[in-house]
């Protein structure tokens, strides 16, 4: 459905386009009156023409057009009432009004169109494009049909070379690839794709129609998001693909509208919802805090006059809580006084909008504020050096994974705790900037060789934590051991030109949702890491929890 913002903008553009002939008509009437001032029909028509601009200008967002139209109408009506033909002076007055009208419309055309709809609250409406790589024609055709049934578009490729060509032409949103291809392995293809610009984005699923050919560790290592072996559960594969695609799509931004006037709030809601936002209305300030917690808004629209207290008080209250330090707040008010703006700034509001707010303005301000706040928030959750999740952000994700595992105990989650060996002596010997470069190279290695779905955090100084999904303990150990092999073979260069290598130790802990809370899970991973260090470093060890394991 077309949004209010788009529809309004379209009508507004039409209004501007059609102003040309109307202004020409006024010009024509002025020449008629200059030639025969006694032509009352022309004078009446002139009044009507100005009247029309007066009645529509502000409605379309052009208050000067209304003001100029009103003045033209008033001047014409006065002459008609006095039954007096216009003088040269009257004609000059109208001409000036006409010139100003022309300028008002010309300005509107030059101005860039207001972004009436935010860039991406809903994500792209176009269907997801999926590349299907399989040399078995039957499987390939089946998959193309299956993907198209889901409302996505599918492109087939029968070899690694063909797939690489297709990807380089246009990066798909998802790839389903057979492990064995006639001219190479699927793993090589995926590793190549992940190395391309934008190649980190597609959801990639492996299939193997022959048993025993799929190596999960290999699949994860090259950067795939999932793997399906014979007998392939196609429904499950489609669900997984949809889920991965959903995850890449930004979720719609949430807006909490604090407004007790039902008329006003229903307008705000209609305009915002039609632009793709999720909106909750809070009409009782006493419910505000509960709404903040349960709705987790990306932005608050705040009326100033509320029953019992002012919007300023509520915002002052919000700003005391550091969780809401970056939450944008827009005040909506009919109070036009300067005092209100000062009060808003003092209370920690971001902007002050006067009602009635043109929808295009509302939407553009809201979109800008949300985008900026999300960006700031994403910076806050990331470590400055490695761009990995911070300790706090990682624990938040681990908590979410724990909650998820409670509901889906069949899905494995593994915590890998990774610590650079002898990091202190690297710093002491080569200097901190070199030590930092070692950390950055390890974080790049983790990012490159783990899946998008795997959560990677910088846990402490030289300590990294990773959550791996859908791997058994033994597979996780193999995967992290391979990473260790890669990392240990990397050569680093000190400022004095000395070449050196580094290594890490890692502890692996499979989540046992029935018996572990977040703390326990972390402790188990920690003690496995400790055991790996004790075993001589450069080692990956799984936790010996002993629970339910031989």
């Amino acid at each position: 459905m077309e949004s209010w913002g788009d529809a309004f903008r379209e009508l507004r553009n039409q209004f501007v386009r059609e102003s040309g002939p109307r202004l020409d008509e006024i010009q024509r009437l002025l020449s008629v009156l200059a030639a025969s001032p006694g032509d009352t029909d022309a004078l009446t028509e002139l009044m009507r023409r100005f009247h029309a601009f007066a009645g529509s200008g502000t409605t379309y967002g052009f208050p000067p057009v209304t003001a100029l139209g009103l003045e033209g109408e008033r001047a014409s009506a006065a002459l008609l009432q006095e039954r007096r033909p216009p003088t040269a002076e009257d004609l000059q007055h109208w001409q000036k009004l006409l010139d100003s009208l022309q300028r008002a419309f010309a300005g509107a055309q030059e101005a860039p169109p207001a972004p009436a709809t935010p860039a991406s609250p809903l994500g792209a409406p176009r269907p997801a494009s999926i590349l299907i790589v399989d040399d078995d024609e039957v499987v390939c055709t089946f998959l193309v049909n299956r993907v198209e049934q889901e409302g996505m578009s599918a492109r087939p490729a029968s070899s690694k070379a063909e797939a690489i060509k297709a990807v380089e032409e246009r990066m798909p949103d998802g790839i389903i690839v057979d492990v064995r291809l006639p001219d190479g392995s699927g793993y090589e293809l995926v590793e190549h794709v992940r190395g391309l610009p934008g190649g980190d984005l597609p959801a990639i699923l492996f299939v193997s129609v022959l048993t025993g050919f799929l190596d999960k560790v290999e699949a994860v290592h090259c950067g795939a998001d999932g793997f399906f072996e014979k007998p392939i559960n196609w429904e499950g594969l489609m669900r997984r693909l949809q889920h991965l695609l959903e995850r890449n799509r930004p979720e719609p931004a949430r807006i909490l509208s604090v407004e007790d006037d039902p008329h006003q709030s229903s307008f705000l809601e209609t305009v915002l919802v039609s632009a793709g936002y999720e909106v909750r209305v809070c009409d009782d300030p006493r419910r505000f805090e509960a709404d903040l917690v349960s709705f987790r808004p990306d932005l608050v629209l705040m009326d100033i006059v509320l029953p019992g207290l002012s919007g300023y008080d509520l915002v002052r209250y919000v700003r005391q809580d550091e969780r809401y330090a970056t939450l944008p707040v827009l005040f909506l008010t009919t109070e036009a006084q300067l005092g209100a703006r000062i009060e808003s700034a003092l209370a920690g509001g971001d902007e002050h909008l006067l009602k009635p707010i043109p929808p295009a303005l509302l939407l553009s301000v809201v979109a800008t504020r949300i985008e900026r706040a999300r960006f700031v928030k994403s910076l806050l959750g990331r470590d400055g050096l490695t761009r990995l999740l911070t300790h706090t952000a990682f624990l938040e994700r681990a908590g979410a994974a724990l909650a998820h595992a409670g509901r889906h105990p069949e899905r494995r989650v593994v915590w890998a705790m990774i610590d650079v060996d002898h990091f202190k002596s690297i710093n002491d010997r080569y200097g901190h900037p070199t030590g930092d470069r070692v950390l950055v190279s390890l974080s790049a290695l983790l990012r490159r060789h783990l899946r998008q779905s795997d959560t990677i955090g910088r846990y402490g100084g030289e300590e990294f934590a990773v959550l791996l999904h859908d791997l058994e303990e033994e597979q996780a150990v193999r995967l992290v051991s391979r990473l260790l092999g890669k990392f240990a073979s990397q050569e680093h260069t000190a400022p004095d030109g000395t070449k050196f290598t580094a290594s890490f130790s890692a502890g692996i802990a499979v989540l046992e949702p029935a018996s572990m809370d977040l703390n326990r899970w972390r402790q188990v991973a920690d003690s496995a890491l400790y055991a790996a260090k004790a075993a001589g470093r450069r080692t990956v060890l799984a936790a010996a929890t002993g629970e339910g394991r031989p």
Partner: protein
Amino acid sequence: MKVLIIDDEEDIRRIARLSLTKLGKMEVVEAGSGPEGVRKAVEERPDAILLDVMMPGLDGPGTLAALRSQPVTAGIPVVFLTAKAMASEVERLKGLGAKAVLTKPFDPMALPEQVRAGLGGG
């Protein structure tokens, strides 16, 4: 709710239609002149009529009188749209039997509620 808009200005009909349908979730019928409006009122039996005051030929008050003269349209509530935002004008139009008087230029975002309030407000 079905609303008939009678206004000779196409701009006004367009934006009022957008506002009433999109924001007000109302059904809208349009007429570009008084006589066409009376005919549409008979055919469509709208729940309310939004009527421009200043139109060439049959003007708003004239159209209202024509609507009142026919039994099938006499009872339909009428809301005037006027560019004259003066108390005396509003009183005059209410005196003619209008349910409410809205001024032009109107705020397209507020129009549906103003129409609803005007109809409900006696």
